[in-house]
């Protein structure tokens, strides 16, 4: 079992390297982190926080968009690509379980994502600490951001596999992935914001809104990181009711989502007829 998963992971890593996905993922994360840390190292002082914590807060806002995007880009082809190339029937006649195939791909894609995240955040941290050695006190926040980013990425990799299995065509899977990214990461928050404004402090704002934030893996990720560093109001833009959500609830959402999305992926893949 382990040998088959590892064999699949190694093969996927070869493919990702040849298709430049490793390079693209790392370059995206490093470039955007550099831009942010350059902007973030301008003196702020306002929050009384160390510089690294400020950079982490802006990295959080960046990662909410970028990590799901990179994860979906790497994963949308996983099943539909095999179907379209015609490689799936042969693979399924091998003594390997379908979940083992997915686990192997997940291992490779997550590893690439970790490399990209560590490279991006690492560069940002190095620059910030070089400019202000006192910023090391923000390393805890950076570590929290790192592992939650990996979990957020794993969630969207799983979602990518599920979409890829449902679409069965690469073009369809790409469309679904972009649509889902726009929906969950961009439009979802806009919709909530509009509803909160219209609701003006009513039932929606107090009861539905917090649950809606927790239900979205990207929002839970942002909420957890900002709450943990007491910067919710400053950087989330939603403020208000979000600040009242206890930390353990957003943590739970972050931990459960990867499991849910991978279970969905495995279910969807089982339904694919070669």
């Amino acid at each position, binding site marked *: 079992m382990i*040998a*088959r998963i*590892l*064999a*699949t992971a*190694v*093969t996927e890593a*070869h*493919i990702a390297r*040849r*298709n430049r996905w490793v390079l693209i993922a790392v370059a995206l994360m490093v470039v955007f982190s550099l831009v942010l840390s350059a902007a973030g190292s301008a003196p702020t002082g306002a929050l009384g926080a160390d510089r690294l914590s400020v950079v982490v807060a802006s990295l959080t806002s960046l990662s909410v968009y970028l990590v799901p995007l990179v994860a979906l880009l790497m994963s949308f082809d996983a099943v539909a690509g095999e179907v379209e*190339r*015609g*490689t799936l*029937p*042969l693979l*399924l*006649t*091998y*003594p*390997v379980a379908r979940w083992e195939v997915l686990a192997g791909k997940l291992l490779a894609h997550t590893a690439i994502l970790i490399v990209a995240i560590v490279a991006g955040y690492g560069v940002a941290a190095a620059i910030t600490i070089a400019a202000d050695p006192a910023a090391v006190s923000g390393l805890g926040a950076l570590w929290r951001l790192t592992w939650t980013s990996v979990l957020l990425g794993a969630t969207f990799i799983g979602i990518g596999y599920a979409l890829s299995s449902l679409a069965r065509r690469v073009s369809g899977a790409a469309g679904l992935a972009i649509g889902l990214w726009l929906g969950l990461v961009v439009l979802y928050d806009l919709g909530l914001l509009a509803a909160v404004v219209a609701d003006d402090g009513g039932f929606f704002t107090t009861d539905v809104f917090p649950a809606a934030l927790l239900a979205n893996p990207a929002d839970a990720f942002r909420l957890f990181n900002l709450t943990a560093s007491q910067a919710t109001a400053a950087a989330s833009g939603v403020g208000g009711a979000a600040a009242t959500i206890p930390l353990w609830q957003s943590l739970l959402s972050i931990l459960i989502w990867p499991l849910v999305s991978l279970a969905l992926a495995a279910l969807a893949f089982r339904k694919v*007829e*070669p």
Partner: protein
Amino acid sequence: MTSTLTISHLTKAFGGVKALSDVSLAVEPGERVALLGHNGAGKSTLMKVILGLIAPDGGEISVCGAAPGKARSKVAYLPENAAFHSALTGLEQITYYMRLRGEAASGAMELLDRVGLGHAAKRRIGTYSKGMRQRVGLAQALIGHPRLLVLDEPTSGLDPVSRRDFYELLDGLAADGASILLSSHALTEVEARTDRLLILSGGRMVAEGSLPELRREAALPVSMQITALNGYDTDIMAALPDAIRLNGGLHLSCTQEDKLATLARISAMQEKVADLEVIPPSLEDIYSHFSRRDGQ
């Protein structure tokens, strides 16, 4: 010894299209069986059912003593138009498949050499020709010691020399006791290299047996082409009322049983005949005799 593969009364329809109707067959250990049929006859569908990729509508199938797809470590498959990821090298692809079968990946290079791909092992499959991709497919089917090889049009895209090498490989596998089921749409390709032929037509098994058996069963007429000496053709036609003029010569066909008697009558007219050619029914004739679709 029990059969490696037994199928009885297998049926499969796609929507309204009956791809397979009441198909029964058995393949013994060490036997090479060719599955013949026109495009759309149901060969690939039959193979996918055997492999457990498609669920049948009815019938019983036993593959190496288990249900389809349950004895995957003993079964190898070469799909029609075998495809691989173009970004991988031949070596990486075969290494992956060997690991999935629990074989030491160190044998990958040797395997590629065996199918004549050693020189291209470290190039990306995207740069391979169709014949080379077919060889990668063949190499992966040889991994481990499969008891049953299911090969869907394995020789398509191979040149005649590679084709001969391929059948030599099969002979070796069959000698070791592996069963081989391979499909083709041309009888000429498989004739001498398989022990038994199965002909599918429109999803039905229409013939089964060795080539001599099928030849006898088809009982197709023998043709004769007679070239008369100048001016004697009318005499010959008078003696052989069935003869017709064709391409400037005389053409005659007769049943297998009448062959010798007819030849005797022709040789009795020796002084009037310039040349005689006897043309037995070709493999394609025998094949199309059986694989004609119902109503045609």
